[in-house]
């Protein structure tokens, strides 16, 4: 089972489950680890030092940290479609069968030929690419850029569709807590006890934060025991919810927080019916940020050698995972906290090679320990590292007095102090403030409702973390209205924290500030020299802090160095703007369920399933699926089907589902007055039982929408909109009702879904409808004239509405039934219409017939046309005010040379016409000046047996009969068309009135 001995695993201890051994593979080699390991801890236990290559120079890199701030140990996790590039080994939970591969190297991690870049490093300084690759100009896209792109980037994305599912959810609480360290748990205790609804998010899979590695005594018991007692108490509180594997990544307005939960990332793949990750939008009245602090490196030559590790990470690997990064380890610290590492290492039986402390005043207790244990304490700084891809061999020390020393060690723990995690508190563009005693930025302001506690606020002692967390939790609960008894706060001692600021040590060789992006101290100096002194310029010029770790370990050091070289203080130099997310979030999680066919909801018409049974081809129209045509056996293409449908309507009878039109009930004594203000024409004088075509403008005078509105009762109109504008028109009408004309007594309701509506058209329409409609209803031209509208009874007792309106130009009715009868209606139409050869037709045939009739639709109502452009200028009432009236009169909107709707047909009857072709005067060479319009809508007219279309053409209506060019260079076509009357069919309208 176990392929490689875990040579760097301690015999006992740690929070791993030794009864659950796991196998995993890294770069093709099989290793063993335990449940409770991360990939990083398991690699360390297996003595793997080299885990990755840097971005620019391809330097060999090892594991630097034990958390989400990791810049180096990025791997491609999983394989095939589940491959995840740039995955931090330090936060990847080990599972059995895990496969990971190093990235950004070729051909292998140990022998990376791209490391040749290091030879060019004298030239590859910050911003070098802005100064070169310019000649010859053509070479950029052809040669330089592809090479740069291949070399850049880190891991490889899968390149195929992500097979996993994601979802999103909402959560609410009074107090949201980020982090489960001492401050976070104390905050949860206080808030939970006071009765607040609490959500605590912890990005780790284990709770306790630094307590997991650094222990300590709380309330007189070991920290681990306190954590488990605390969790047990929290579990008894009904409204406290602990979410592990969940990272709070951003704070948005109104107390909305973004978090993502790695629901099943600790498994090879999610179980059936489960998601990989879930995006949470947490709405919280208050938020306590107890996200801790991040230990910062010190910039010295060779500080990127594998085996150089943050001191706290060393402790985490040893204490939490029982994995030893080194056997003989040196410590380089400038602060008291670093010394904990000595205790942890000695406790695990490791050798201490030396402690290099930049502070002159190391305590007597430490010196005594050193003396007893037998390791030197050197007052000075590490100035160089002798080592390579297999790790550290020796370190050079610049002693305070100027002398040098060398120390043999196979690992170096570094502590440059701690930076509070100020991300969340700074995401509303609040800048953190500098705090001298810890030499770090701490939150100054925070988004409304948020407060930082514990190390995140700069309090590094355990006692202080507990006190602050508890107080913040209690205060948050109280301000959210919960005043329950919070009981006694947990108590612990405060360790002393002393630090001598140290950012950079002089030495030979590259000294890295931003490990992942290979930004060195000299890059920062160069940036300063070239005038990129502002931190935002520094960041952009050197790419400092722009890597996947967002500069968590590098930003402060970088600006400290900039401050030094530009002779300013660190607070004067300032920070860049902090931007979410706190850690990178999978795009899949942010999309959730909304992908593939679930990208947007789907609307189905009442006859949808019937149409599907007929084999209809559907087209997406907004969210709707509409039957586009109904192919029949033997038809060779869509055109043949559509031609048949058109001919069937023009020669007999057909029907089409038009339920997608927006339908609005307009009620109330002032309904007519209201419509007069929103339409350009008059509706108050419309007789009950009549329908009228109406045109609406936007306030800027352009046509907004059109449709037929019927008066069903004195105080009840039934308004229809186009399919596309159903929602926007409803919103617009509500605006008119509620904001512009509040004095009118009018009520609006969408009834779009209440009615199944069908256009029944063709000379045999009346014959068909007589089969459907109760015989007592008079459908004759006298009894139900053109533009009549009224309720009728259908055979079988169903109440329906009939509208004698026609889009097709034929004798036609639209018939509406309550939607649940829509399916029955089509089946009955088919049954009753068999004798008349009734033919269902789709949106294509509908479109053909409207073009034959010259009716405008979406392509002409394009938001830049006026009523007059559409040939409907005469509808505009001069006797009343209406929305858009005044602006419609502006000079350019009434100019004589506007493009107006006209018919077009190729002079060669056999030629196909295409939408989007431009209109150019005949005989002229196309150019900007003579581009006079374009073809908006086309169809093959089976009625006229040729392609026809509508076009918007300058002064078009004055030019009927003129031959012009249809110019279509995109499709390589150029042909003559005749400008003609847009009403190609039955221009006097006799058929629809008959």
């Amino acid at each position, binding site marked *: 089972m176990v392929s490689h001995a875990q040579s760097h695993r301690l015999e006992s201890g740690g929070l791993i489950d030794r009864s659950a051994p796991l196998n995993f593979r890294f770069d093709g080699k099989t290793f063993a680890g335990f449940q409770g390991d991360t990939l990083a801890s398991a690699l360390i236990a297996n003595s793997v030092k080299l885990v990755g290559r840097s971005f620019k120079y391809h330097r060999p890199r090892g594991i630097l940290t034990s958390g989400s701030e990791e810049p180096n140990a990025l791997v491609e996790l999983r394989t095939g479609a589940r491959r995840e590039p740039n995955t931090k080994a330090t936060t990847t939970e080990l599972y059995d069968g895990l496969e990971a591969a190093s990235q950004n190297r070729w051909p292998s991690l140990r022998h990376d030929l791209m490391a040749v870049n290091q030879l060019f490093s004298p030239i590859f300084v910050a911003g070098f690419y802005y100064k070169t690759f310019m000649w010859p*100009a053509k070479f950029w*896209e052809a040669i330089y850029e592809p090479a740069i792109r291949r070399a850049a980037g880190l891991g490889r994305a899968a390149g195929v569709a992500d097979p996993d599912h994601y979802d999103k959810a909402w959560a609410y609480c009074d107090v949201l807590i980020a982090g489960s360290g001492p401050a976070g748990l104390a905050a949860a205790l206080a808030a939970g006890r006071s009765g607040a609804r609490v959500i605590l998010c912890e990005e780790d899979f284990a709770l306790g934060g630094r307590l997991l590695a650094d222990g300590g005594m709380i309330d007189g018991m070991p920290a681990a025991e306190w954590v488990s007692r605390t969790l047990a108490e929290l579990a008894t509180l009904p409204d406290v919810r602990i979410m592990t594997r969940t990272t709070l990544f951003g704070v948005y307005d109104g107390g909305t927080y973004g978090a993502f939960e790695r629901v099943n990332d600790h498994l090879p793949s999610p179980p059936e019916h489960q998601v990989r990750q879930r995006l949470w939008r947490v709405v919280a009245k208050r938020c306590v940020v107890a996200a801790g602090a991040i230990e910062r490196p010190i910039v010295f030559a060779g500080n990127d050698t594998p085996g150089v590790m943050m001191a706290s990470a060393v402790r985490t690997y040893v204490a939490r995972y029982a994995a030893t990064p080194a056997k003989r380890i040196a410590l380089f610290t400038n602060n008291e906290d670093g010394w904990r590492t000595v205790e942890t290492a000695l406790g695990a039986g490791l050798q201490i090679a030396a402690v290099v402390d930049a502070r002159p005043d190391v305590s007597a207790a430490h010196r005594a320990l050193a003396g007893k244990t037998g390791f030197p304490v050197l007052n000075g700084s590490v100035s160089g590292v002798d080592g390579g891809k297999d790790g550290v061999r020796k370190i050079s020390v610049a002693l305070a007095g100027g002398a040098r020393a060398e120390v043999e060690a196979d690992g170096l723990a570094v502590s440059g102090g701690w930076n509070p995690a100020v991300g969340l508190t700074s995401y509303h563009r609040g800048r953190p403030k500098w705090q001298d005693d810890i030499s770090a930025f701490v939150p100054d302001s925070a988004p409304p409702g948020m407060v930082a506690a514990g190390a995140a606020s700069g309090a590094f002692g355990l006692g202080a973390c507990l006190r602050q967390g508890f107080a913040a939790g209690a205060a948050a609960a109280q301000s959210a209205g919960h005043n329950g008894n919070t009981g006694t706060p947990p108590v612990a001692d405060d360790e002393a924290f002393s630090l001598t600021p140290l950012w950079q040590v002089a030495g030979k060789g590259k000294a890295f500030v931003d490990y992942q992006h290979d930004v060195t101290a000299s890059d920062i100096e160069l940036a300063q020299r070239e005038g990129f002194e502002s931190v935002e310029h520094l960041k952009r010029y050197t790419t400092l802090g722009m890597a996947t770790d967002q500069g968590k370990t590098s930003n402060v050091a970088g600006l400290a160095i900039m401050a030094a070289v530009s002779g300013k203080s660190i607070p004067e130099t300032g920070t860049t703007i902090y931007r979410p*997310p706190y850690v990178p979030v*999978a795009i899949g999680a942010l999309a959730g369920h909304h992908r593939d066919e679930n990208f947007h909801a789907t609307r189905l018409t009442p006859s949808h399933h019937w149409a599907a049974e007929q084999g209809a081809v559907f087209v997406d129209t907004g969210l709707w699926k509409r039957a586009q045509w109904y192919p029949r056996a033997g038809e060779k293409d869509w055109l043949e089907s559509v031609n048949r449908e058109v001919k069937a309507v023009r020669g007999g009878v057909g029907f089409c589902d038009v339920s997608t039109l927006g339908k609005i009930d307009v009620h109330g004594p002032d309904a007519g007055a209201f419509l007069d203000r929103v339409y350009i024409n008059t509706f108050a004088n419309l007789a009950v039982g009549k329908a009228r075509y109406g045109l609406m403008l936007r306030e800027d005078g352009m046509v907004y929408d059109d449709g037929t509105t019927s008066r069903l009762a004195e105080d009840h109109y039934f308004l229809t909109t186009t399919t596309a504008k159903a929602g926007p028109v409803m919103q617009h009408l509500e605006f008119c009702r509620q904001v512009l004309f509040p004095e009118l007594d009018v009520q609006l309701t969408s009834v779009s879904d209440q009615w199944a509506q069908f256009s029944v058209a063709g000379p045999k329409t009346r014959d068909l409808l007589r089969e459907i409609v109760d015989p007592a209803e008079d459908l004759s031209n006298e009894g139900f004239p053109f533009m009549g509208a009224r309720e009728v009874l259908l055979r079988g007792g169903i109440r329906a509405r009939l509208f004698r309106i026609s889009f097709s130009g034929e004798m036609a009715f639209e018939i509406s039934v309550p939607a649940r009868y829509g399916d029955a209606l089509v089946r009955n139409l088919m049954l009753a219409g068999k004798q008349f050869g009734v033919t269902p037709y789709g949106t294509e045939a509908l479109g053909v017939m409207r073009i034959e009739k010259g009716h405008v639709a979406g392509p002409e109502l394009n938001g830049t046309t006026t009523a007059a452009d559409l040939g409907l200028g005469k509808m505009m009432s001069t006797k009343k005010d209406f929305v858009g009236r005044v602006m419609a009169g502006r000079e350019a909107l009434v100019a004589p040379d506007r493009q107006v709707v006209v018919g077009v047909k190729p002079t060669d009857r056999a030629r196909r016409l295409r*939408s989007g072709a431009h209109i150019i005067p005949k005989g002229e060479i196309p150019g900007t000046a003579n581009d006079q319009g374009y073809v908006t809508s086309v169809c093959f007219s089976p009625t006229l047996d040729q392609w026809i279309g509508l076009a918007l053409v300058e002064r078009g209506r004055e030019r009927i009969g003129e031959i012009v060019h249809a110019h279509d260079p*995109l499709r390589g076509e150029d042909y003559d068309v005749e400008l003609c009357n847009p009403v190609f069919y039955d221009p006097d309208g006799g058929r629809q009135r008959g």
Partner: protein
Amino acid sequence: MKYSIFSLARAAFSGHKTWQRTWRDASPKDHYDVVIIGGGGHGLATAWFLASEYGIRNVAVLEKGWIGSGNAGRNTTIIRSNYGLPGNTGFYELSMKLWERMEQDLNYNTMVSQRGVINLYHSDAQRDAYARRGNTMRINGIDAELLDLAAVKKMMPFLNFDNARFPVQGGLLQRRGGTARHDAVVWGYAHAASAIGVDIIQNCEVSGFVRDANGKVTGVETSRGKIGAGKVGMAVAGSSSRVAAMAGLRLPIESHVLQAFVSEAIKPLIPNVMTFGAGHFYVSQSDKGGLVFGGDIDGYNSYAQRGNMPVMEDVCEGGMALLPMIGRVRLLRQWGGIMDMSMDGSPIIDKTPVDGLYLNAGWCYGGFKATPGSGLVFAHLLARDELHKEAARFRLDRFRRGAMIDEKGVGAQPNLH
């Protein structure tokens, strides 16, 4: 020092100690022929063209923070000239031609990368609209191709062709479109303009206009003192209304927040710039490897330079709908810029009713691609007191006259443009 591989190599011998400031750190003089407010791409480009094309070198660019700290440094770096309406078409092509020679003009590698911009279509109506637009481009001498489904599949086999809610049917391709390195454009113009005499004055915030008895603007009050000016040009994008208000002007502009996003750096995945036609999503991949993407504006007036989750989610939904392969790619950073959304979605470059004050504004979310063109035509206006012929329709009075340039056809509602 001229930038080249040779100068780089030479400098390497001295440990790069010989490099000078990229642009001079100028202090304000008492008077300039032209003062440009706004040290973004447009302001700096204007100064460069004033000095290089129109011979006016006594020019200052005033920047309240550090140059490029506004929208020039926060955009998705796309360049294109695929517009459909007279006024826009010619102007953006002028700009495109200037992009094509930018590196040689400025001696600065702005990484202009013409790897193609494709607008995908998902319906016949959309195809027809793109056909109209593409033909407009062709008639104006701009490259455009209408691709069918097969051609799109060949070019981008990784799109969702299997189970898309709104299947891709084709696209309008402009091969000369692409991206440029946004910060480098700012630094390149600063570098070149400074070298021929333009003063770039950072940390200099304008607090008011100096007017003479006739109301003519004769200078500006700033945080670094009063600065006299023969003419003052505004190129302050999202701050246009605020600065114009100092001169008593109200503009047909609203400021809105537009978010943009970048993913972690990955090896080359997406070869071009693409826009999804059935949702709010567009994407390209930077030279560094990050997917740079965005979508719709948040939709409400804002000067906060940050957005909210609904749009962030909407954009990622669009991304996953089009490119289901990016599910496991991680979003690294989100940011927001202030867009000067005009009432017809098109820019305004004109004199204002206040004598001596000139306006360059209303770029909506499309200002980056316009940078060189905007600089040239604004410089022309400032130098000659006449509209450049390729910007003749960007007049301020077009709204009053009704001659809007409304590509989307949504009217006087900025958040719909």
